[in-house]
């Protein structure tokens, strides 16, 4: 009793100054704070620092696209009928009048032509979905090439990878919902993929479709997945992903004053709250502009699904393109009967290759962590050139993926560049097999060359373009030293050395140790050490009072 009185007394004492200066905002904030103690949270989050670099905003683009997807998708659920009941179209689009179709297709057309703003919202939803997954992909590439997945962020990489897979699943289920010809063809390919798996294939397909393809179940089932189960998991994983970003704090590129223990940047309040809030509307605006002026998924052209027709130029949305491409690239003649079962290796090989590719992406942080043996936390990002092997592996992966992706549009490449489709396929087959190796070696060499160049610039300055004639008649070019901030960027990186094979506690050299040593050697065999302070002092470099270093033509 007495404590409450005391408490009220203290608040009374502190209240008048707030009332005096704060006006309505101050009073409201005080009201809230007295009841929720929210000021502690605001203080904590408002002072959270984010470093400034454009590539750090890619994840935000994905997040904002997802918000747009949820908003537009909610609108669409008001009108969409997830049913495969047969009906006849009787809406505004003349070329489909009286055509038999499912209730799902009919309602999708109804949204497009007879619901006010329906077509715009449908197109916003679809464009936002394409942008969502594209932004995720680019965000993952940024994280990969800058080494932001290293300890302590390996688990968050896995969560992000899960989000990427969930986003693709969301995309594919959504693409299938209108029950138009294009989506039906896409589903048929998935059905074929599943049926091509040995032993379990046919059973799995019948389980998924509730009988023989296409059945009357799949749209309803995909709808439940698309609007309930997948988004629920996605939102949960997304929340966890963001919590980890807060817990780990944001990574930053090397620079003056930046260490593994601090974050240099701007606070959320007021800078990033304004920037990020504004950026949401910019992303939303770009999506709405695309949706306003560019058709996406014109289901009225595709017409209702019917298993007999397949349109030329039938492709999945871009994010499933790599799977479609893998199926197009696999050479014929790989199907045979063995033990009274049909073994469709033309299906099994692409499926295994795709699963392996995704698996490799998911576990890469752990592989690299094991190879380097580095158990320290890393909050300073790598410049891609300073980790040549990782960058080269990434380039090889991107080349492989891009080959599969390009193969999915082989027919359009053939018609638009007046080539034969067989020629296109053969070139892309060679690309997918040889391209990654080529990309690996070229990227690695380019990275090492860039590191050498950086080292050269730190030690000898950059060419200023100023030509000076010496009294003896010799011409030289004046080299200027880089400033301290720039030099920081160029020298602040670490070089690992290959791990030696050492016997363990029992005095044995295990196979794993040998493998690890070999991998480590592969990763760090070629390396360029950053310029050291001692090297900087040599040869009369870095005199602040002289205009720059003078070097002759010889010994350069």
């Amino acid at each position, binding site marked *: 009793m007495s404590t409450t009185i005391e408490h009220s007394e203290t608040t009374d004492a502190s209240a008048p100054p707030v009332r005096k200066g704060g006006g309505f905002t101050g009073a409201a904030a005080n009201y809230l704070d007295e009841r929720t103690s929210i000021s502690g949270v605001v203080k904590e989050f408002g002072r959270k620092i984010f470093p400034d670099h454009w590539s750090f*905003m890619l994840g935000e683009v994905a997040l904002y696209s997802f918000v747009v997807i949820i908003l537009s998708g909610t609108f669409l659920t008001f009108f969409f009928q997830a049913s495969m009941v047969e009906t006849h179209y009787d809406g505004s689009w003349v070329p489909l009048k009286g055509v038999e179709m499912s209730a799902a297709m009919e309602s999708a057309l109804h949204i497009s032509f007879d619901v006010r703003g329906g077509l715009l919202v449908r197109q916003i939803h679809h464009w936002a979905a394409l942008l969502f997954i594209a932004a995720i992909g680019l965000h993952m590439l940024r994280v990969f090439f800058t080494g932001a997945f290293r300890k302590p962020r390996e688990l968050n990489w896995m969560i992000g990878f899960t989000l990427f897979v969930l986003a693709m699943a969301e995309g594919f289920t959504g693409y299938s919902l209108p029950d138009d010809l294009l989506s039906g063809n896409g589903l048929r390919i998935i059905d074929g993929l599943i049926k091509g798996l040995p032993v379990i294939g046919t059973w799995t397909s019948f389980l998924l479709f509730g009988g023989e393809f296409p059945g009357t179940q799949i749209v309803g089932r995909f709808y439940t997945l698309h609007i309930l189960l997948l988004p629920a998991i996605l939102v949960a994983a997304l929340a966890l992903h963001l919590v980890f970003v807060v817990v780990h704090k944001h990574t930053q590129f090397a620079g003056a004053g930046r260490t593994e223990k601090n974050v240099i940047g701007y606070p959320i309040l007021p800078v990033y709250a304004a920037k990020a809030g504004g950026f949401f509307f910019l992303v939303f605006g770009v999506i709405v502009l695309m949706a306003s002026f560019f058709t996406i998924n*014109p289901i009225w052209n595709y017409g209702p699904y019917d298993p007999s027709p397949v349109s030329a130029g039938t492709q999945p949305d871009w994010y499933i393109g790599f799977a479609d491409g893998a199926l197009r690239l696999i050479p014929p003649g790989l199907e045979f009967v063995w033990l009274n079962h049909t073994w469709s290796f033309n299906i099994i090989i692409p499926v295994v290759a795709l699963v392996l590719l995704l698996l490799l992406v998911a576990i890469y942080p752990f592989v690299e962590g094991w190879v380097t043996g580095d158990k320290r936390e890393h909050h300073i990002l790598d410049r891609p050139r300073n980790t040549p092997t990782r960058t080269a592996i990434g380039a090889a992966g991107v080349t492989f993926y891009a080959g599969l992706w390009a193969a999915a549009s082989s027919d359009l490449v053939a018609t638009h560049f007046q080539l034969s489709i067989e020629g296109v396929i053969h070139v892309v087959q060679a690309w997918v097999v040889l391209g990654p190796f080529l990309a690996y070696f070229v990227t690695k060499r380019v990275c090492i060359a860039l590191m050498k160049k950086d080292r050269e610039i730190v030690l000898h300055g950059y060419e200023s373009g100023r030509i000076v004639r010496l009294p003896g008649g010799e011409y030289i070019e004046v080299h200027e030293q880089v400033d301290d901030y720039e030099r920081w960027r160029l020298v602040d990186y670490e070089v690992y050395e290959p791990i030696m094979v050492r016997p363990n506690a029992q005095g044995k050299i295990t196979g794993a140790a040998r493998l690890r040593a070999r991998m480590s050697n592969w990763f760090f065999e070629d390396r360029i050490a950053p310029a050291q302070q001692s090297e900087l002092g040599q040869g009369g470099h870095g005199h602040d009072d002289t205009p720059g270093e003078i070097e002759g033509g010889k010994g350069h």
Partner: protein
Amino acid sequence: MARKSRKAGRRHPLATVVLIAIGLVVTGGGYAAFSSTTTASADTSSAASQSVIEEGEKLFASNCATCHGMDLAGTPDGPSLIGVGAAAVNFQVGTGRMPMAMQGPQALQKPAQFTDEQTAAMAAYVASISPGPAIPDESLLQADGDAANGGELFRVNCAMCHNVAGAGGALTEGKFAPELKGVLATHIYEAMLTGPQNMPVFNDDNLSPEDKRDIITYLKYIENNPSPGGNELGSLGPVAEGLFVWIFGLGAIIGLMVWLTAKSN
């Protein structure tokens, strides 16, 4: 001296201007000539008189017989024209596919090489040697049939090569199904009737004349009613959409990101 001659020739400061002017005149003139030949489409189904057939024979002998043979029976360089009818001639010559510029995977469409009268004369000549499909009646070409029926027939019979929106598609070994936008109703009908190049024949038992009319109605409907959703991106489907979102969508957003994080000068 050498410098002087160079300055007067292609290195002259005004050479680029002259070159552009020549290019514009040639393309503009070519386009004008081409569009006047296509707009002046006359009635080709008039009864062929003997004099017309004779004129057609002369044109055939000088332009077609090298590959198709004087007796129309074909040679190693070109197929027999016995029984192809006036419709085939009108399609092949009227769309500029014949005479071919060169042997290739497929005869390419180009500006028509003959006037409508000359085309009609050759058609009459070929039809006079042996009977075949005739040039369709105008009443079937008005695009006034049932677009919904035409759309369904188009998706079942045509879309696997020509794409649902008639944007065309790839075939094997460098062949392709052409885009159908801007193709005259007569030519669409004749193509279905005669099955030019790699296209199968859709005879009147397969697709009745009314069905063909409905297909033309559908194609003309989607040609004349642009997409309600905005620019169609070539009606090429998800590949065009994916390219667009990566290049322009994400491109615009990355531009905004760079702007937002740029340091003020």
